[in-house]
């Protein structure tokens, strides 16, 4: 019979030392080795700085995915800082992955959202708005309203409209309509605000 019963694993279940893992993460030859090292470091809160540094240099998307997950899992301020650094990466894949990851860190994303909202680059301000989607109402709302009422770039306001479509309530209707009034020639702005108002109208007030 060709079916065998597997014997108990003879693998050494204990991971190497912290320093050995960091070295393996940076210099391991295979994706598997570097991912393995990252996974082992993910349970070590003190690995946040090393992981953030590795994220910056790692070319393999599979290893990067592991580093991002590890930083989310560790969830310290330094881990959030490491993710935030990647928000301005050249590579859109890394940028988007960093946004998704940072969203999972809740209030740790707030200082970064605030910082990015103050930059002169509209793409960065859009990223900031995307980070607000998972923040609690009290902190996110004033920033979203400010974007709707004052940001000169229509796509920043549109990102805020999108967020409010998902999490907004009746108290957001006035800023939404003000935004639509600021960009009367943009067909999509009118559409988006109309939709958001319909959705937020049926929600209980915050």
């Amino acid at each position, binding site marked *: 019979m060709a079916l065998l019963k597997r014997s108990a694993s003879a693998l050494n279940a204990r991971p190497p030392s912290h320093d050995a893992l960091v070295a393996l993460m940076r210099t391991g030859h295979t994706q598997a080795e570097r991912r393995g090292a990252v996974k082992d470091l993910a349970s070590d809160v003190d690995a946040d700085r090393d992981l953030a540094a590795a994220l910056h240099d790692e070319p393999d998307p599979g290893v990067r995915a592991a580093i991002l997950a590890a930083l989310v899992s560790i969830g310290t301020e330094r881990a959030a800082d490491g993710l935030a650094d990647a928000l301005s990466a050249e590579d859109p894949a890394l940028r988007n992955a960093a946004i998704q990851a940072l969203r999972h860190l809740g209030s740790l994303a707030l200082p970064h959202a605030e910082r990015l909202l103050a930059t002169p680059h509209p793409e960065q301000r*859009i990223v900031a708005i995307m980070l607000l989607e998972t923040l609690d109402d009290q902190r996110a709302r004033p920033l979203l309203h400010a974007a709707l009422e004052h940001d000169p770039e229509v796509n920043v306001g549109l990102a805020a409209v*999108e967020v409010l479509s998902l999490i907004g309530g009746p108290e957001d209707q006035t800023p939404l309509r003000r935004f639509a009034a600021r960009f009367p020639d943009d*067909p*999509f702005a009118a559409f988006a605000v109309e939709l958001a108002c319909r959705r937020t109208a049926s929600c209980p007030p915050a």
Partner: protein
Amino acid sequence: MHAIMAEDAMTVRMYYRSILEAAGFSVVEAINGLEAFEYAIAGERPPDLFLVDVNMPLMDGYTFLRKIRAEPGLCDVPAIVISTLREPRDEERAFEAGANLVLVKPVRPDALTVLVRVLCGSRAEQIS
């Protein structure tokens, strides 16, 4: 005519769906490039059009374009990139990745309708 749209913002998907449907397309919505690719591969026949956003989680628009251009059944499907970015470099990147057309938001319904008909018109003739 059948279109697959890759776009992670719900409101944007609704907007472009209404334009494409008015132009005679049936539309499948994907929230990222990976999902769009899966729909394209799993379908019985290739779509007639891809409408692609750039910034999406898990697989961005450029990566998606490179994937479909490397796929025998999908490499000839017209792809329109809709982008918020205005850097000329980004437009170049989209074309290099395999876009047929790059449009910058805001996109007017009548403009998109005309463009999809032109892009897909000859294809419709080929199929019928």
